[in-house]
């Protein structure tokens, strides 16, 4: 165990990582609300595997890993968005893309002569390994996603609920759906750097799923999802720097525990409501 002084010193060193985690947690929670409403949890996983392949390719070529990961996830997001407008098509396309991406990524890593810790971190994340200029990029991308998501919030809500009526009411549904896929691709690429390709869903699916267990308010659900994402990401980093274990398991565990608590609380209020309705 380390003492308080060392901990505070460490905090100073990882300050930028904490900021990146905080922003990702907040934005990931918001994006997750739409991931849930559009039934896209599987798409998140598919995009993250291609993002991993892109990052691995960049590592092998000595290029910028964040850029590689961005390219991989944008290609996946746009392919899924264009080819998989209907849910069934979408799932089969993701099912095809995912192993292809993961396989390529593993190939690139196998060819990469560098340290194996770097290889592993793309799959399971290690934010401390990301240098400051790249962290700035991650924060910047997250903020762009946040602003764009707020701008398309209403049409996206309409399209998520009822695309046919939204189109009849003048929502450019194809544009909105594709724009969301691009935003999803961006935020997945950021998450891959921070918690790793295999664990992206802990920040893009779990917080929103937890929020939906305890509320169906259009304001409270996004707010809670953001708070849950924030607490998981920042809490995970703060706990991890005190010990020698990697960050990701802390983040995924906090996020999972929040979900379990929400499920228990939500289950109780739901059955109480049902009881009240029956009386």
């Amino acid at each position, binding site marked *: 165990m380390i003492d308080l002084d060392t901990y505070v010193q460490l905090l100073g060193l990882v300050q930028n990582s904490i900021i990146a985690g905080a922003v990702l947690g907040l934005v990931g929670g918001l994006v997750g609300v739409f991931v849930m409403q559009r039934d896209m949890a599987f798409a998140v996983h598919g995009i993250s595997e291609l993002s991993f392949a892109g990052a691995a390719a960049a590592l092998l070529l000595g290029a910028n890993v964040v850029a590689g990961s961005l390219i991989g996830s944008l290609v996946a997001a746009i392919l899924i968005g264009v080819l998989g407008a209907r849910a069934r098509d979408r799932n089969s396309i993701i099912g095809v893309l995912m192993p292809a991406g993961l396989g390529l990524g593993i190939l690139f890593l196998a060819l990469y002569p560098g340290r194996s810790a770097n290889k592993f971190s793309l799959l399971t994340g290690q934010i401390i390994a990301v240098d400051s200029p790249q962290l700035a990029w991650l924060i910047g991308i997250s903020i762009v996603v946040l602003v764009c998501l707020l701008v398309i919030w209403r049409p996206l809500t309409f399209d998520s*609920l009822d695309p046919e009526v939204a189109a009849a009411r003048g929502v450019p549904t194809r544009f909105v759906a594709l724009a969301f896929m691009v935003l999803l691709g961006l935020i997945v690429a950021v998450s891959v750097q921070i918690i790793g390709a295999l664990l992206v869903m802990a920040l893009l699916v779990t917080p929103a799923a937890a929020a939906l267990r305890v*509320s169906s308010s259009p304001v409270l659900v996004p707010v809670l999802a953001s708070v849950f994402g924030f607490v998981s990401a920042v809490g995970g980093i703060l706990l991890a720097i005190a010990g020698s274990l990697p960050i990701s398991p802390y983040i995924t565990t906090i996020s999972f525990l929040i979900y379990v608590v929400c499920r228990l609380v939500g289950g109780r209020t739901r059955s109480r409501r049902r009881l009240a309705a029956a009386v």
Partner: protein
Amino acid sequence: MLRLESASLGFGRRTLWDGLDLSVRPGEFLAVLGPNGSGKTSLLKTILGQQRLDSGRVLLDGGPVHRGDRRIGYIPQQKLVPAGTPMRGRDLVALGVNGHRFGFPVTRKGERERVDELLDSVGATGYADRPVGSLSGGEQQRLRVGQALADDPVLLLCDEPLLSLDLAHQRGVSDLIDRRRREHDTAVLFVTHDVNPVLDKVDRILYLAGGRFREGTPDEVLRSEVLTDLYGSPVDVFRSRGRIVVVGIPDAETHDHHDHHADEHPEAHG
């Protein structure tokens, strides 16, 4: 107001309708009937500008229709909103008012008042703040009517809006649509496969079947010889206590389903 001029549409080798001329007056209630696959929904999609005609044209107030025309209100087939959707009754209606607008999702005061008005006009104020996913099919459908009326449409397109509603809600929702066209002169195109719930409200009928169509008042169209001619096989139309029962339609499942359902509660059709 709404005019179709020698409109034709088909998919592949199958013609849905050919040389369709139709003109709908303000305040008119036109029911579009026909078996599954006769192109009822495609007709609505055409008017919504989402489906191109093979030939002919569609005009609204003299101009061609286009996608997302806000003078048209659209009430879709009853699809239940999944439980747990983070949306209250009033949010569903609000989407009709500002759901198409990009920008930070802040609802203005005027918009909130408009939503309250709409909720009141469809009798949904009582459950406006409950989660949509927890409401009954009939309650959800009332909210969708409110959503469709957001911009005071001159034309209301309804695609089987009564499907899978119980009789009381069928009456409630169809009364709502009927009152709207009487008070605001809104034309109504009402796609349905069972005319009985709206028989007392319908001005005219467009009957689509087998690539052909007939148009006229219910008494002119809903006759054994007219439908026999349309379907090319013997069809009988019976009237009993103000209800119409059609027997012998080749693809009879959908009709049977609703007639059977209605027969159990004949009093609701008065």
